[in-house]
């Protein structure tokens, strides 16, 4: 699971709503996957990222320090873009958990695949 994916995930436990984001990440196995750097691609992703969620995840994984927010003129700042490229696309969480910040419910990540299925009781409306 890449951190860009993590940034899109939210807990859907009943009643949690928007407080289900971001999921608290805990990783027991992480792999770095080289991905071809495409500055244009990264630059377009930046505005779509929920920055606070990304900061939290990157911090948990003790990754290279991510700036508190996208820097001015980031579109042309290659150093910044490469850093974000690495954080968003090259870090792969293979084993770990994602925890709903509101309910505490844990979702496992196994072999790089998050399992976000809930039981019937947890989703009943």
């Amino acid at each position, binding site marked *: 699971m*890449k951190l860009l*994916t993590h940034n899109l995930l*939210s807990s*859907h436990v009943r009643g949690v709503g*928007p407080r289900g984001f971001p999921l608290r990440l805990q990783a027991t196995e992480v792999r770095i996957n080289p991905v071809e750097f495409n500055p244009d*691609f990264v630059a377009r992703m930046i505005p779509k990222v929920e920055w606070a969620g990304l900061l939290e995840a990157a911090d948990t994984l003790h990754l290279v320090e991510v700036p508190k927010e996208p820097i001015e003129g980031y579109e042309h700042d290659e150093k910044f873009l490469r850093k974000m490229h690495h954080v968003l696309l090259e870090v792969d969480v293979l084993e770990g958990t994602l925890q709903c910040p509101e309910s505490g419910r844990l979702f496992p990540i196994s072999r790089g*695949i998050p*399992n*976000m299925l809930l039981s019937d009781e947890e*989703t009943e409306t």
Partner: protein
Amino acid sequence: MDHEAAQLEKQHVHDVYEGTAPYFNDLQSKAWPRVRQFLQEQKPGSLIADIGCGTGKYLKVNSQVYTLGCDYCRPLVEIARSRGCEVMVCDNLHLPFRDQGFDAIISIGVIHHFSTKQRRIRAIKEMARVLVPGGQLMIYVWAMEQKNRHFEKQDVLVPWNRALCSQLFSDSSQPRRKQQCGHPERSHPYHPPCSVCSCSVCFKEQGHSKRSHSMDYEPMMARACCANISEEGEEENGFYNTFGKSFRSWFFSRSLDESTLRKQVERVRPLKTTEAWANSTISIQPSRHSSLDLDRQEPLSTREQTSDEDVFVETSQKQLEWLRAPATKKHLRGGQQREVRRNGDGNFLESTNTNANRVNAGDVEEGDPSSKILRRISAVDSTDSNPDATMSVEEQQPDVLDSRALMRYYHVFREGELYGLLKENVSELHVLSSGNDHGNWCIIAEKKDNCD
């Protein structure tokens, strides 16, 4: 009601996909061109979700976008993952995404697996929720109106296993060198029929995992399926001849499994009132005999979205002449169609018994069932001079059960139904275009601004 719906989907969608997922490992399935086009038209840097991605055939169509695949079926997701895709396991009805995260979403061959109208609406609304305003959603569902087949009802159980072995009929005059094969034992030309699909070559085991949605990988999968009929040049004809014999008995055993299945159902019938029978609105789609397809030699990619029952996907007419039954399915069904009691607005589950797993033969509604069964057997017999082979299969109870177990549930859509569903129930979406693509109703809709 929702619980029954979930149970039906578990048995006739999730369990089937999960049980058959292991067999699709190596098989490359084709992407529908219109879907590919939709994906390629997305702006570079878009975030895209494929809800019901299956083995991930759409996930790498466009390298300029970030595509996340999700599916209910873990084994299929694992396969996609092994191909380097970013994927997860989740439920279309409860998408684990924050609101307005995606620029585009595709849902190809998924919504038709939901067994109630409410669930189908919910699935669409969930996808709308996670779309950015202005973002587009593409939905493909199987159409009730098909050129090559006839769906008796909108809620159907479709046998899984027929098309898995369509490759067995590949023309030996078209040598195929390396054929992709999902199973390890390619060196053996012959295997005893296995319980999953009675295919004499492939699928030795019957794995059981659980869950899935993507359906349109089957046709391609079928084509790439096991049989290395023309493996080595000089072996070709000899292999095929040996194979042909065993295949023939396989084929007829499958047909009779179906009539045996009907007999099973028929035995149950006296216990029910006629009315109860009439109220049963799920029909089993009979396996479509190849004879309906023999005249069509379309390459797979342009073929309509054939069901997994189309055994003969790419075949040579000459070789298959012996399979033509004088009485085709259509002929047997003839006459009056029972009125479809439920259209897309209703929920068939309301009228059936709580045992939603009850299986009902589609064409026993007309005339005397027993005579119909006899007719079918005799049709088969006329092309196979070995009646003994046909008889012995009836004792194979396990096959009947397996055949029932691997039925997949579909709610096939009438023309305009999907459009109507969105228009009346999902006000946050605005339909941009709709049409028919290879036997599917497809729609592209846009998330309206200012409505979340």
